[in-house]
């Protein structure tokens, strides 16, 4: 890759102005460090995964509002966790975490348990009890 082949595509919502380092050949055929503004291919591939994640979070949020899942499920998705890792972070067994994803069981949880979840998810106990009513509030 030569210096002028280093991608400099405009993808501000993706790279947020951050430039990544690349090694490229200069006119004398010597390797130099060239910062790159962004690359379309990179952005496209990232957007696939990112959209998949956003869609999953949104789907869970709706399920919570419909009463099919507990708010814990929403925040777990938001933090990109699965019951196993949420359980490890909060110090609660995985099978219990899975039970707590059901709204009727979540509603009966005592404060200390809610607190350990809130701490593991870096939110307050009050936040943990509800989910945002529209997808923009995050």
């Amino acid at each position, binding site marked *: 890759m030569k210096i002028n082949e280093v991608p400099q595509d405009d993808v501000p919502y993706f790279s947020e102005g951050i*430039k990544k380092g*690349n090694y490229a050949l200069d006119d004398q055929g010597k390797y130099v460090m060239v910062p790159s503004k962004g690359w379309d*291919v990179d952005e496209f591939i990232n957007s696939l995964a990112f959209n998949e994640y956003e869609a999953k979070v949104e789907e869970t949020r709706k399920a919570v509002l419909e009463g099919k899942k507990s708010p814990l499920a929403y925040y777990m998705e938001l933090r990109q966790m699965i019951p196993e890792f949420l359980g490890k972070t909060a110090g609660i067994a995985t099978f219990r975490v899975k039970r707590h994803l059901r709204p009727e069981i979540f509603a009966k949880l005592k404060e200390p348990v809610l607190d350990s979840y809130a701490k593991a998810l870096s939110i307050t106990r009050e936040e943990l009890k509800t989910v945002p009513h529209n997808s923009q509030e995050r």
Partner: protein
Amino acid sequence: MTTETLANGKPYIHRTSAHCETGVTSALFRDKGVDISEPMIFGIGSGIFFGHLPFLKWTGLPVSTFRSLPGTVFSKAAKRLGAKVFRKRFRNPQKGMDELRRVIRTGQIVAVTTNVYWLSYFPRRYRFNFSGHNLIVLYETENGFRVSDPALLEYTVDCSTHDMERARFARGPMEARGLMYYPLSVNPNPDIRKACITGMLDSCKQMLKIPIPLFGVKGMRYLTKKIIKWPDKLGYVEACRQLAHIVRFQEEMGTGGAGFRYIFAAFLQEASELFESPELNELSNEMTAIGDIWREFAVVSARIIKQRGQAEETFAKAGGLMLICAGREEQLFRNLDKVVRKFKP
């Protein structure tokens, strides 16, 4: 380029790098007074590799890596350059944070392994649950730490205590468990020639001689076969998802594909001056060409996924490109092995 003053008054110069671990290692050595470039660390630490790990899942899909195991570049480079290192994981987050504070107060910069999701200075779309990002902690600030992230930023940045603790001790696949490392003492005049020879021979061994068909050149061939079969076996949508996953590992997450081939080419170029060997320079050119094909693979893959099966680009073509890479890399490392064996340390 930014300059910072450490706790003991020593200056620290932040330089951008192409990859986190090599950038961090190079900065740690520079801090100890041994000026060694990032590509040199990459070559000496034998960073180049390929592996497809169907049994190790990340977001539910198998991991493909284009580099050696995280952490080995630092360990190998330090060993080959004759440095004594401190490297520790912690069970207790509080102890891990206390130890970090204690060391940076003495003016020693410390590298830590972190989970990208919890680093809020990252762009939002980069923040995925991936525990393998290395950065350097410089000194304490009022409500956190000043950090130098050579692979991502052109300047140093603040990181809150909360972010740092969560990032270091995040639970998940490949957890870092608060890993922190730094060299205790460094040989001021390391035998770079000898270290390069060891590094290059080790790279050849990793790419050619591991008797498991998932690693090195064999791994590429194995993955090629899988890619070509995917559309029939998994259906088009799932096949695209898997292909996108490979490209993500290749281009985006410090596991670098083409980028790593360019770093290795830069290393071969530096080594060719060191050994005054035109052969190494030729190999560097060849590596550059291979890097270009890897990039082409990413471009073709993206096109396949975009058009969702409407003609021209096919999985067979993407697989074919990877097969070309496999063939040319095999030849390159065979030649490199022959060239290096003639050198005297």
